């Protein structure tokens, strides 16, 4: 198992807050993150230009009309998250230092946003994150190394090797995923009760 590679606890997320010291702001949201964007725009707006990237994918409600009314900024809406990520990468390629980055949505979305930013030299800790919507986890199987997304239970079936994985609280920033360890390694077939704990 990779040592020193996982952080012992799950990441801490905050509520988004504008950072006044900046030259520009980029807000990236998916699904239920639309609500967090609405809250963000109720705070006093910073003076610098703001660009909002939003993909409604996975939202329980339609936040678009409210966003269009409330967001006094350059609002860019994408049908799919993949389109949003492609636009984000080309935006970053033109961006200058002083850009502040805010993201909100489910964990996987936020870590994809941060990872794209990291490829442009921005550290993950400088991307502000607010978790909204589902607590679903991405799980990395330490046995077959594949990722299984949208896991909502304490025990998941690995999409790669089919093992039953216990979902740990150990989180890999690089993969944006939690560690999954085979539950019945000692006593094959002995799987504890599966509970939905990350709704």
């Amino acid at each position, binding site marked *: 198992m990779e040592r020193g590679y996982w952080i012992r606890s799950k990441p801490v997320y905050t509520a988004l807050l504008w*950072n006044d*010291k*900046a*030259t520009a702001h980029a807000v990236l949201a998916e699904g239920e993150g639309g609500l967090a964007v609405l809250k963000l725009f109720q705070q006093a707006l910073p003076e610098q230009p703001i660009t909002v990237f939003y993909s409604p994918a996975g939202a329980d409600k339609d936040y678009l009309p409210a966003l269009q009314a409330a967001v006094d900024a350059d609002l860019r809406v994408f049908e799919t998250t993949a389109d949003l990520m492609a636009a984000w990468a080309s935006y*970053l390629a033109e*961006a*200058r*230092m*002083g*850009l*502040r980055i805010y993201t909100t949505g489910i964990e996987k979305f936020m870590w994809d946003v941060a990872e794209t930013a990291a490829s*442009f*030299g*921005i*550290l993950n800790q*400088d991307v502000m994150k607010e978790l909204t919507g589902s607590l679903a986890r991405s799980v990395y199987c330490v046995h077959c190394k594949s990722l299984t997304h949208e896991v909502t239970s304490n025990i998941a079936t690995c999409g790669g090797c089919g093992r039953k994985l216990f979902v740990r609280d150990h989180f890999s920033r690089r993969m944006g995923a939690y560690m999954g360890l085979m539950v019945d390694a000692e006593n094959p077939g002995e799987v504890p009760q599966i509970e939905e704990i990350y709704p």
Partner: protein
Amino acid sequence: MSQLQVKVASIQDVSAGVRHFTLVDASGGELPAFSGGSHIVVTMPAPGRTYRNAYSLLSSPEDRAHYEIAVHRQPQSRGGSIYMHEAVKVGSVLDISYPVNLFALSRVAKHHLLIAGGIGITPFMAQIHDLERLGGDYSLHYGFRSREHAAFADALKGRVSQRAVCYDESLGQRMDFDALLRAQPLGTHVYACGPQGMVEALVATARALGWPEHHIHSEQFLAPPVGEPFTLKLSKSELEITVQGDMSMLEALEAAGVDAPSLCRGGACGRCELEVLGTDGQLQHHDHYLSDADKASGRKIMPCVSRAKCGYLELNL
């Protein structure tokens, strides 16, 4: 502090008040490797007292046969730079520390913006070697008072002219930090070395524009300011030491044979921090390492640059 012995192989005056020293290993061997941005501390046994000053290495880090340093004669110097200018000759043997890098290039930067003022160009001379060798993306902005103060403008012109912009203040050319910083692509790291006012202005501008703290690197070698004499009481070793007005606390400790750690000797690295147990006066903090809260608490002091206006100062040492 572990020491190396070097011999002065050549001396050159490169610009007004700046003398350039080429050092070789005193026994003819190879010198330890270093990375661009490193400095050494030179021990100068002047009559009556010993000075120790930090100087950036400006030679190519790949050259293990020589170290090069440049020493700016500080008019208000307490003696260190004057000693280098007047007492050190070709063939002199000097004790120096092993190189230490407190101003290293970031490995994750997408672009390096190097900002030099006056003699602050020296660490960048070595860093440019590293950047050229590794193919790093960078630009250098070098300001100086006038052409005759431009210690390395010609050397830069020959080597990296398309990457370097020079600003001659006597011609009214000045760096516009705000415009320069705003123009930098994402993932840029900025490095500043030069006079205190310049470095502080650059750091403040970068912060105001929202640069994350770890994208901002700076180095200044503060000379310890002179003050009034006072007495150090060391509680553990039960010693009493007088700090002369033109001596730093660190120098006074070293002169008394006390083993006091240090690295940058310029109030930046934090290595020399000491615990204050009491004083009958006021601490005078000159470092830029301690937080304002630490300074206000009166419990900590950086003896390389800070002192006290008092009769005695008691240290947990």
